[in-house]
């Protein structure tokens, strides 16, 4: 495996090095891409990592989608390139219109930082191809705005089209239909609130994230 992954860094991102480390640990290559860049360079996939891009002041991801690099990310995605948004990166993808829905404050109005159990709902996505449908994964969450929502028509559509990639076994944030992660119709753009990069080594308490980032390295 020598796939090269571009990890976008916005002002306020804070999980980019964890993602790079995890991808390298899994045998991939990774490079950081500053948000002001207008080109992605020679990368095979893109990750938008977690954090607080541009500070979250107006709304999570609202400003980040105007970062110059996002035009290149949108073109890359439109051309079928694999794009994964983790946590704040998921919020950025919804604001950018690359994924449907929105992420609002957790139902309990509490920031939640804890292990979560996810169920893999489809293996037909760039982040879950190596997993098994029904497989349960232990991967941490770390968010205040992880409560996925969308209108009824959108929910019916993403269910009908098998776009729900992960569901929480125990819903921690009020997400509609226990949704933890979704993909776009073309299945090359995936967003999820849990942090697979924090569950790729036994010392971290779980290696369950490795199957997901490993899928991306093969996508």
């Amino acid at each position, binding site marked *: 495996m020598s796939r090269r992954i571009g990890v976008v860094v916005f002002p306020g991102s804070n999980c980019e090095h964890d993602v790079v480390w995890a991808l390298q640990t899994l045998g991939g290559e990774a490079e950081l891409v500053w948000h002001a860049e207008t080109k992605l360079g020679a990368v095979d996939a893109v990750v938008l990592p977690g954090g607080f891009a541009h500070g979250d002041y*107006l*709304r999570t991801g*609202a*400003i980040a989608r*105007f970062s110059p690099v996002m035009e290149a990310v949108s073109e890359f995605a439109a051309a079928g390139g694999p794009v994964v948004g983790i946590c704040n990166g998921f919020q950025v993808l*919804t*604001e950018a219109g690359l994924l449907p*829905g*929105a992420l*609002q404050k957790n139902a309990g109005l509490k920031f939640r930082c804890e292990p979560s159990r996810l169920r893999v709902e489809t293996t037909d996505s760039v982040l879950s191809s190596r997993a098994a449908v029904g497989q349960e994964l232990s991967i941490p969450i770390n968010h205040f705005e992880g409560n996925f*929502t*969308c*209108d009824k028509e959108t929910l019916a559509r993403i269910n009908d089209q098998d776009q729900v990639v992960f569901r929480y076994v125990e819903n921690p944030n009020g997400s509609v239909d226990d949704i933890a992660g979704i993909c776009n119709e073309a299945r090359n753009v995936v967003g999820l609130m849990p942090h697979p990069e924090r569950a790729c080594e036994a010392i971290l308490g779980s290696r369950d994230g490795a199957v997901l980032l490993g899928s991306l390295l093969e996508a």
Partner: protein
Amino acid sequence: MDAVRAFAGAGNPLIGICNGFQVLLEAELLPGAMLRNRALKYRCEHIHVRVGKSIRLVVEANDEDTARAQVAEMCDRLLANPVIEDFSISVVAAEGCRNA
């Protein structure tokens, strides 16, 4: 309360004010519960409440319609996320504005 519950269950508007709010909580028609005030004091006073976000900004425009259109575009593109938010715009002339 059986009748009230049936009324609400049929989708009708139901509002609980103060003790009525507490009743709705006890009746589990709304989630949560009320505790005694933190300072253990009875409070009777005017307060200001605000729903959602209020964003004030100054735009330059020759007339109100143009100003409103500019702000509507800002809301559509950035200030509001239509999946979870809606917005309303109120325009007032800035001090010293010639086209008030």
